[in-house]
């Protein structure tokens, strides 16, 4: 039995009142309880940022590593023990800036994990500098002349042939929880970009701004297995912002292609030095 209490933590939350992160935390907990996943079978890997503090505010195994390096650490942990359910958590700075190279590689590899990106279009923890997803022209202390063109994470993911791609909104907890569940259940790499208003540093992309624009693609008879349609959806931004599962496909999972992982997780395999005797013959 898994009950909501299993995911309650007593660590004091260091987010600003009204922060979009609260909705994401709620959705994560809801999804995990509904999936009946026990906390010790779960591993959160996160980086540095306000969003990536999330694992401390719920329960599970936690590896809170470096800014932007969530994905390789999560990949290493999955390779060591592929019985763990792995959820990665980063902000848009860590995911699409510092760690972008890892994201591209993870999508190509198709490692089986779910990656939640708290996308507030600004650097929160370091207090309000432009992020890779800030709107062009966004004025901050580091970009007094205006930010450069933003990256489009959805288009990037599709170009990397991602196997699961969704966009959620932290103001729609119910829907976000359903996306997280779908991502965790998906076999392969699942990227969930989450629109997260930052009440302290982003006066432009507020709760109201998003609420006026977001809609659920599934309400419009959208087919997430159609890559051409997904590619078009990825370009939609402005008056209407799509949320929901943008794209989904079956692709070979990285772990399943490694012979050593076929029997059981590496961490459960014994160490036996003498099994390598035959290799010495190569040098005799």
């Amino acid at each position, binding site marked *: 039995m898994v009950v909501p209490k299993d995911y309650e933590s007593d*660590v004091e939350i260091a987010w600003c009142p009204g922060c979009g992160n609260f909705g994401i935390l709620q959705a994560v907990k809801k999804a995990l309880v509904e999936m009946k996943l026990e*906390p*010790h*079978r779960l*591993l959160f*890997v996160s980086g*540095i940022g306000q969003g990536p*503090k999330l*694992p*401390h505010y719920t*329960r*599970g*195994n*936690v*590896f*809170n*590593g*470096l800014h932007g*390096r969530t*994905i*390789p*650490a*999560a*990949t*290493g*942990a*999955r*390779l*060591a*023990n592929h*019985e*763990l359910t792995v959820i990665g958590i980063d902000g848009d700075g860590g995911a699409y800036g510092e760690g972008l*190279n*890892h994201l*591209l*590689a993870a999508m190509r590899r198709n490692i089986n994990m779910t990656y939640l990106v708290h996308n507030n279009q600004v650097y929160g923890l370091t207090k309000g500098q432009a992020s890779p997803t800030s709107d062009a022209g966004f004025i901050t202390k580091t970009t007094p002349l205006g930010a450069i063109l933003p990256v489009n994470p959805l288009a990037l993911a599709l170009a990397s042939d991602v196997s699961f791609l969704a966009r959620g909104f932290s103001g729609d907890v119910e829907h976000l929880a359903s996306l997280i569940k779908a991502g965790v259940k998906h076999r392969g790499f699942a990227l969930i970009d989450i629109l997260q208003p930052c009440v302290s540093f982003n006066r432009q992309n507020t709760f109201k701004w998003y609420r006026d624009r977001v809609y659920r693609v599934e309400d419009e008879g959208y087919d997430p297995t159609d890559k051409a349609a997904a590619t078009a959806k990825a370009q939609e931004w402005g008056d209407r912002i799509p949320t929901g599962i943008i794209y989904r496909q079956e692709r070979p999972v990285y772990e399943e292609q*490694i*012979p*050593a*992982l076929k*029997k059981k997780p*590496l*961490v*459960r*395999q014994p*160490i*036996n*030095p*003498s*099994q*390598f*005797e035959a*290799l*010495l013959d190569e*040098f*005799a």
Partner: protein
Amino acid sequence: MTDFNIMVGGEAGQGVQSVGAIIAKTLARGDCHIFADQDYESRVRGGHNFFRIRASTRETGAVSEELDLLVALNSETIDIHKKEVKSDGLIIHDGETTQARISKTKGLDVPLIKLARDAAGNRLMANTVSVGAIFGLLDYNFEIIESILTKEFTRQGQKIIDDNIKAARAGYDHARKNGRSKTLPEIRLTSRKRAKILLNGNEAISLGALAAGCKLIAGYPMTPASSIMEYIAGKEKEYDVAAVHVEDEIAAINMAVGAGYAGIRSMVATSGGGFSLMVEGLALAGMTETPVVIVLGQRPGPATGLPTRTEQGELWYALHAGHGEFPRAVLSPSNAKEAFYAIVKAFNLAEKYQTPVIVLTDHHLATSYATVDRFDLRRVKIERGDTVSPTKIGEARSYRRHAVTDSGISPRALPGLTKALVVTDSDEHDEAGHMIEDAATRIEQDLKRLRKLDGLRKEIGPPVIKEAPKADATLIGWGSTGGAIEEAAAIFQKDGKAVSTIHFNEIWPFPADEVKAVFEKSGKTVVIESNATAQLAGLIRRETGKKVDHTILKYDGRPFSPKYIISHLKGVL
């Protein structure tokens, strides 16, 4: 004592490396000791490359600069190396290629290309003809050459094997008919017991890592480390190990740390440039108390430096890399045998002390071949450190990954294997692994981590000390220079000088007490190392207060030879 030296030289693409390896492997079947090194440029075709093989009746770990046989696959090789050929030595070459005119007493003209074409129908096998010629001159048992060629070319099929054997045979017969043979019974096969193996430093490290139970290597190619991942990747289908060619070295270290956190032995292998990208991850391992093993194969820097050459310029870097303060161990094996046991020890220390361990090698050690006694895998002891048993933990809601202990070591639980939740953070954290800001917890955790150095200090062996009574001088080195220093000392001893040696094959935490003791009766102290700033001498000064009398430094990217050391010592002693 017999000491026989062969050099094969040519341009990249002529197969200098593979011919050299075949010669070394063939000679290793005899009862002699082999040491072989290679010198090549950072390019795929052209330039000048050579491979030196030394066969000796005495154990040797250094190159010699006096050649008995020079195999010149092009004329440039003759120009550059003829001065190294001994007065009774011989140059084997193909007159048609080299256009060199060498007297009959100094040279043997073997029509390598013609013989390759006639015997094997393939001019590319000219280099195999040269192998045959060498062993023809040595009157070596041809069956051994045949068996080595068969083993070398197995993967390429029977026809390639047969053609290579034909090519070798042609060279062998030609040399026996036309050359003045040099019979060296000492280096020929006399028994069939084959107690020795021939391998280079990277191969020893790869084998050691597998034997130690390394289950994951994550890497990005960089000379001289690439062949470690390549070797292990080649075993992925047969053995339970994963090799991941990652997007960059930052991914490599973070992946290895993630795997270490989840409970498997994991490693990375790189050179200085890649290590620089890993440094933040090194500190992450220190902070999260995660075991990880890093092989740092040095080459001359700064920046890209001399990619295919050797240097010991990163001793201080290996000791200090990483922001903040955290414990580490640094091992610096001097030869292939030590490299094998060093990597095993590195994995044990990393897990016992839950912290990163660096195995510091260099291009010379990584790529030089040596005969060593076949490793005894039963001697490989696995020590996984203080772990929490799954049964003991039960329902433990209260497990604290970073529990404060006297030794600084917190018993380790692994995520998913028990009900304990394993929480850790690169932010400063409390015992439970959650991030904190308060000063008291910070101090407590910082000291706890650093206390692990006390235990580590006891694990590090003393340097290898060979004391001569009433020493006139003590030669001091670390890492791959061991063989050359040792041999230089032996030569001085023979000349009636009392020379001691101290060699560091485990260098951090620094074994200061043992060093101080030797300094009391050392005579003149001379530190010998492959860098320009005398990093070991500086470290000794810092850790013991002792100032060494002299240094012999070499930073041209080439390894030390005993001869080089002797010529520089003459001014000192």
